C-alpha cells in the first residue's frame, strides 16, 4: 500500500501564559513528536482518552491547527510550509467531519447553502451544475433533495451528520479526518453512519483518519490503530492484531475495559488508577509510568524510544527493549 500521508515527528506545543503574579510560562505539549504513515485507501484509527491529543493530531494534519514543528507529507508533498493559497487548493483533497453535528452547521444556512459553500469556494460551476451536484451528494449520503431547503434545526442528529459528511465529500477529497463522527449520536444511528462511511470509502476510494475514544467502533471500522497518550503515540498496529495481542500496558488496559457481550468469557480487567496527568506538566520519563501497573525504575527517568517490534507493529515502552525481550 503506497503511503498517502506521511507524518514525521509532528509537534504542537502551546505556550502557557505567564500569570500576572506568580509562576507560569512553559508549554503544554498537545502533540509531542508523533510519526505515522497512512496508506492509500486505509482507515487509520487514533484512540486515546480525552486530552491525549488525538483531535489535535487530526486538525494539525489539516493545518486547522498550525504545527509547532515536524513534517506532514501528502502524496509526497510537504504541506507544513504551504502558503495560504496553495493550502486553500489542497483543501479540496483533505477534508474533515466533525464530532458535533449540531455545532458544525451554521444554524442560519440551509443545507443547500452549506453544501454550496465548498463548491463556490473551489469550483466555478453554474447554478444548475451546483444544484445538481448538491442533490446527487445528498442522495449519496442517504438524504433526499428536499433536504436542501431545510435548516439544520429541522434535522435529526443523524441527518445532520450525513450533511456534515456530504459537505466534506462534495469536493471529492482523497483523505478525510473523521473526528469522533459518531460519538454524539445514538447507538442505533451510529451503526448507520459507520456503515455509510464504509460504503463511501470503497465507492470513492477514500483514506480515513478516524479519531475516536470508542474502541468497539474502532475495531469495527479501522484497518490499523494508533494509541495515543498525553500527546505521544504509544503503540500502532493492525487492528485485529492489536486487539488480540496488545503490547503497551496502556493499550492492554484500554482493551480490557471494552464491555464483553459474552458473560461466559471472563477476562482480567486492568483498572488504571488516577487521572490522566496534565499535558502542561507531564510526568518525567515515560508519561504513562504514574499509572502503569508494570512500571519499572527506568520508566521514571528514561523516555522510551519509539521502536518497531515486528513488521507492522511499533511501540514506545521499556518492556520491549532488546534486552528485556530476550529475558521474557
Amino acid at each position, binding site marked *: 500500500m503506497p503511503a498517502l500521508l506521511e507524518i514525521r515527528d509532528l509537534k504542537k506545543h502551546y505556550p502557557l501564559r505567564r500569570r500576572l503574579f506568580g509562576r507560569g510560562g512553559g508549554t503544554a505539549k498537545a502533540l509531542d513528536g508523533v510519526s505515522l504513515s497512512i496508506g492509500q485507501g486505509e482507515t487509520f484509527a487514533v484512540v486515546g482518552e480525552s486530552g491525549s491529543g488525538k483531535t489535535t493530531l487530526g*486538525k494539525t494534519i*489539516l493545518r*486547522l491547527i498550525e504545527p509547532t514543528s515536524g513534517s506532514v507529507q501528502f502524496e509526497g508533498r510537504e504541506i507544513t510550509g504551504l502558503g495560504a493559497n496553495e*493550502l*486553500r*487548493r*489542497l*483543501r*479540496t483533497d483533505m*477534508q*474533515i467531519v*466533525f*464530532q*458535533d453535528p449540531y*455545532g*458544525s*452547521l*451554521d*444554524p*442560519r444556512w440551509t443545507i443547500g447553502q452549506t453544501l454550496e*459553500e*465548498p463548491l463556490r*469556494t*473551489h469550483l466555478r460551476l453554474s447554478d444548475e451544475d451546483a444544484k445538481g451536484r448538491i442533490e446527487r451528494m445528498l442522495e449519496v449520503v442517504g438524504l433526499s433533495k428536499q433536504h436542501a431547503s431545510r435548516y439544520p434545526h429541522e434535522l435529526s442528529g443523524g441527518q445532520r451528520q450525513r450533511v*456534515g459528511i456530504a*459537505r466534506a465529500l462534495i*469536493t471529492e477529497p482523497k483523505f478525510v479526518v473523521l473526528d469522533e463522527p459518531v460519538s454524539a449520536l445514538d447507538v442505533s444511528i451510529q451503526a448507520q453512519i459507520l456503515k455509510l462511511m464504509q460504503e463511501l470509502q470503497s465507492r470513492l476510494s477514500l483514506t480515513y483518519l478516524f479519531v475516536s475514544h470508542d474502541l468497539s467502533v474502532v475495531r469495527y471500522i479501522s484497518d490499523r490503530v494508533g494509541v495515543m497518550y498525553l500527546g505521544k503515540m504509544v503503540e500502532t498496529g493492525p487492528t485485529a492484531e492489536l486487539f488480540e495481542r496488545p503490547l503497551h500496558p496502556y493499550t492492554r488496559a484500554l482493551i480490557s475495559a471494552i464491555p464483553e457481550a459474552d458473560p461466559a468469557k471472563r477476562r482480567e480487567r486492568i483498572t488504571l488508577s488516577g487521572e490522566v496527568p496534565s499535558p502542561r506538566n507531564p510526568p518525567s520519563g515515560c508519561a504513562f509510568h504514574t499509572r502503569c501497573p508494570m512500571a519499572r525504575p527506568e520508566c521514571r527517568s528514561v523516555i522510551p524510544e519509539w521502536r518497531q517490534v515486528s513488521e507492522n507493529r511499533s511501540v514506545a515502552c521499556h518492556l520491549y527493549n532488546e534486552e528485556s525481550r530476550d529475558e521474557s
Partner: protein
Amino acid sequence: MNRWRQALRSRLAIVGLILVAVWVLFALLAPWIAPYPPNEIQMQDKLLPPSAAHWFGTDNFGRDIFSRILYGARVTVWTGMVSVGIACLIGIPLGAAAGYFGGRIGNLIMRVMDTLLAFPSLILAMALAASIGPGLLGALLAVGIVAIPEFARLVYGQTVVIKEKEFIEASRALGVRDKAILFRHVLPNAFAPLLVQITLGLGSAVLTTSSLSFLGLGVRPPTSEWGAMISYGRDYIISGEWWMTVFPGIAIATVIFGFFLLGDGLRDAFDPHGRTRRVTRRIKRFSTHTHTGSGQSL
C-alpha cells in the same frame, strides 16, 4: 421566525414599536400635518398658552410649538439614523476584525474602545462636538463617535464566541477565505444582539443629540430641535410659560421610551436566558443619564 413573533407578543415591545412608528410618521409627514411653518415669527402671538389655534401654545417669538415639534421630529429621526449609522459603519468592522483576527492590533483596537467607553458619553460628546465645531454636523459626528465603542465591543464579544464554533472551523477546513467567513457566517450570527443594540443606540443618540442642542452645541437656531427648544423655554419656566419646555420634553421622552421598550422587547425575544423586565432599570438609568452621561452600557 418564531423570535419575531415572540417579540411581537410582548405588549411593551408593541407599545415601543407604535411610539417609534408614530414619530417616524410625524417626521415624514410634518410639512403636511403642521398647521404653521415652523420658523414663522409672529411677535403679536408670542407666549400664547395652548389653545385651539395653537395646540401646544407658542414660544417667545410667536412660533407654533406643535409645528416646531413635528419638524423637530425630522431632525431627531435624521440625527438618530446618521449617528447610529456612523457608529455601526466604524464600530462593527473594528469589533469584528479585532475579534476575528485578534493579535496585537485587535488588542490595541479594543483598548482604545475601552478608553473611549471610560469617558461619560455626554462629556465626550460635548468635547467632540466643541472641537468639531457647533452645528448639526458636529453633533451628529460627536454622537456617532461616542457610540462606536458600544458597537465595537458588542461585535467583538460576539465574534470571539462565534469564531470558536465548529461551523467556522468547518468553513476554514473547506478553504473559505477569512473575509467570506466573517461576512457570511460570523456577522449574520451576531445579527440579533446587534439589532437590539441598534434600537437602544437610536434612543441614546436622540438623547445625546438633544442634550448637546440643549447645551448649545447642537443645531443652530432657528432650526427646530427638541433639546434646543427646551433650552429656549428654560427662562420662561419661572414666569409660568411651561408649555415651551414640557411639550418638547414629552416628545424626547416618548421617542426614547419607544426605542428602549422596543429594544428590550427584542432582547427578551432573542435572549432566552434573561427574561427579566429591564425596562424599569433602563428608565432609572435614563434619569441619571443627563447627570453622568453614562447609562448606555448593556
